[in-house]
């Protein structure tokens, strides 16, 4: 079975470490916040100027001056700090964020990522994504492995305009956890009940498959 959105978030959460500063993109990455282990301190960075993002507010707590990068109303965690956009991207570009999680349309065997534009269809802009992929060393991309028509999104060459070049090393799809190195995809784990053959079939870029591919544990 392909992973649900929640399972994707749960699997990403297993990569968190105590004391990590983490930037979560819009969509599935945002859900990771729901699965931070209780014995772990993780601080969420929101690139509009907040380090230490808390949960959504109650009706009484809503504050129009306190939003996240998805423009949703949020709260601040204990120990939070506030800053301007230049300072925020100094943190990001300067490599001070420990883990960045974001979505994508396509990734390829050279670690290229396309996530912000579909020419003629979707031209909303990159927001902070280009800075995030350029600045972070530790990035996990979460995405579906293939389109609903079965077209692979793990390619030998991205077809859409790039968000970043040679910057992606880890990809979690609904079918597999994959590492990118030396111009190849390496299959690390498969979703529970998903066969290696199915993953091979839906991966267009060169995929290295070890003899034994463990199932993800939840």
């Amino acid at each position, binding site marked *: 079975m392909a992973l649900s959105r929640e399972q994707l978030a749960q699997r990403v959460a297993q990569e968190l470490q105590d004391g990590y500063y983490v930037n979560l993109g819009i969509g599935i990455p945002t859900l990771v916040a729901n699965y931070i282990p209780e014995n772990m301190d993780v601080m969420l960075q929101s690139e509009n100027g907040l380090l230490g993002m808390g949960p959504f*507010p109650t009706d009484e707590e809503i504050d129009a001056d306190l*939003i996240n990068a998805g423009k949703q109303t949020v709260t601040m965690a204990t120990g939070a700090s506030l800053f301007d956009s230049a300072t925020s991207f100094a943190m990001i570009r300067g490599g001070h964020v420990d883990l960045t999680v974001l979505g994508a349309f396509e990734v390829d065997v050279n670690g290229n990522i396309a996530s912000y534009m579909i020419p003629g269809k979707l031209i909303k802009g990159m927001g902070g994504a280009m800075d995030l992929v350029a600045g972070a060393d530790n990035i996990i991309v979460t995405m579906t492995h293939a389109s609903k028509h079965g077209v692979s999104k793990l390619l030998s060459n991205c077809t859409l305009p790039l968000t970043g070049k040679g910057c992606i090393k880890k990809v979690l799809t609904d079918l597999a956890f994959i590492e990118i190195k030396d111009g190849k995809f390496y299959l690390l784990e498969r979703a529970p009940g998903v066969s290696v053959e199915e993953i091979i079939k839906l991966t267009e870029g060169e995929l290295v498959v070890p003899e034994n591919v463990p199932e993800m544990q939840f």
Partner: protein
Amino acid sequence: MAGFDKVVSSYEEAMAGLTDNMTVIAGGFGLCGIPENLINEIKRKGTKGLTLVTNNCGVDDFGLGILLPDRQIKKIVASYVGENAEFERQMMAEELEVELTPQGTLAEKMRAGGAGIPAFYTATGVGTPVAEGKDERTFNGRDYILEESIVGDFAIVKAWKADRYGNLVFRKTARNFNPMAATAGKITVVEVEEIVEPGELDPDQIHTPGIYVNRLIQGTFEKRIEQRTVRKA
């Protein structure tokens, strides 16, 4: 004290001198921390051919989006413009020139512009459409592109509190691009929720010193929320 008193008495006075084809830098992220009333004044004035430098362009009926129907914007430099149907129509019809700019690069362009730095190298955008036509250089084995900074004829800024000298304090994430915008305007106009006397703000807590501010006005704000997300109490 009059020499440093930045307070003006009307929005008309606040935006006096803004003329067609000028460049305006605006603070705000989404609808958070936007200079609502200064934008309304630009609409009222009917100034046309503007180049706007801003993270976003508001929504159809609020924020910078209200400058679209009368075609007041010629060009926009922004990182994300997806919340606005009229914007999309004008962009697709090529009535509006759009220069998509990574958010961190945009913030740095304003910061550098205000700090007298004409350009800077960044790794953001290398190998992407953003790099097209830009100088590239390698430092310590990594590729960077040269990005030019931005200075505006006007900067329009929203802060929380100010003293009459234009010392500014921002509130929570309504700070965002506002402090950089404030430094990067030839004429910087700031609207705030409250103006106090000089000496009433703690000098250690001032986010933007008054030297950057030319005009200051107190307004009332709608502070519209784009995505109202709540949890149960």
